[in-house]
């Protein structure tokens, strides 16, 4: 998020090329003869390295375009397990689930920038933290809506007061409140300070809501809960993982891109007021 790092046609092409390489390497790793844990670990390291280099060379927008396009096409065409009830809707794993993963990753970034603001007092860090939280909330709302559509056809109703559904709703509302409360301050520094502190408290609460509470409830309908007939994280077959991991990175980068545009708009506004 170092701001207006210029991109050109070539960097987009190189980024798309990098996304092709990423998918191929992931495919080799996941298809190889290793233990499940090793495969997951190695592919995480590979993805981390790719993201790091894409930012370093300014190719990340191309990487984003390539990975999301790959997700949209391969997500529809690849072979998926034949499971009752979910049928083809298992493909929503490539479209609905990345919303939540991208949201969590970007909110983690947001908290890091909030802490950075409190430590250094640079208003730009607050801008980045807020815009990451804003786009995350949009992703969260999209995740809730797509989840309701999916639930309608697999669980029989759009809303069944499932533990994870409820806590995802509460988590999204917490961040909506964050964005509304911020606007009630006139003073920039006061606003930044209060919202940074709020964000640092909201984040652990969200993690508890999304990952701890649903697991403590007896029967969540979501996969991973006990006695669930659908699919747990470990039922994901290899073909699905090859699409699933890149898709998460792609959508997260798209969110960062959108946040980046708003951060830069706000920087322009700040500069305008400075001139006045």
């Amino acid at each position, binding site marked *: 998020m170092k701001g207006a790092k210029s991109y050109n046609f070539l960097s987009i092409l190189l980024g798309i090329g990098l996304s092709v390489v990423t998918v191929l390497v992931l495919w080799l790793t996941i298809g190889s003869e290793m233990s499940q844990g090793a495969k997951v670990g190695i592919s995480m390291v590979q993805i981390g390295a790719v993201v790091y280099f894409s930012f370093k060379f300014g190719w990340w927008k191309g990487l984003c375009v390539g990975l*999301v*396009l790959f997700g949209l096409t391969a997500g*529809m065409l690849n072979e998926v397990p034949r499971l*009752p009830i979910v049928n083809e809707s298992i493909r929503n794993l490539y479209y609905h689930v990345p919303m939540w993963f991208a949201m969590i990753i970007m909110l983690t970034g947001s908290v890091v920038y909030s802490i950075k603001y409190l430590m250094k007092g640079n208003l730009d860090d607050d801008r980045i933290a807020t815009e990451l939280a804003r786009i995350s909330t949009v992703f969260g709302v999209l995740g809730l809506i797509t989840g309701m559509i999916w639930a309608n056809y697999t669980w029989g109703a759009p809303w069944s007061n499932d533990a994870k559904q409820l806590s995802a709703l509460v988590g999204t509302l917490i961040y909506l409140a964050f964005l509304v409360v911020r606007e009630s301050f006139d003073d920039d520094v006061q606003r930044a300070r209060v919202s940074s502190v709020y964000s640092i408290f909201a984040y652990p609460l969200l993690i508890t809501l999304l990952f701890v509470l649903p697991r403590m409830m007896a029967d969540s309908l979501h996969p991973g809960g006990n006695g669930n007939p659908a699919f747990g994280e470990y039922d994901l077959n290899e073909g699905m993982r090859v699409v699933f991991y890149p898709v998460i990175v792609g959508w997260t980068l798209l969110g960062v891109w959108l946040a980046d545009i708003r951060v830069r708009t706000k*920087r322009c506004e700040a500069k305008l007021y400075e001139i006045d």
Partner: protein
Amino acid sequence: MKLSCMKSINKILTSIAAMMLSTLTFAQGKEVEMADGLRSSGKIYVVVAVVVVIFIGLLAYLFASERRLKKLEEELEANKS
């Protein structure tokens, strides 16, 4: 007469129930339904093409908006100095 009629109706009902039960078990034993026809006929590619075109269109819009923003940033920078 009436009794025999009842008996035959009973027989028919039982056989219908048996038939339904057998189809039910048959349906359960069947393979899980997937959109195979769609894929084998090749038409899923049409949907994929539509999705891709929409996404590329939105991306073009995103790039165009960003270009305007970049111009604004450069202008502000020039004004400042």
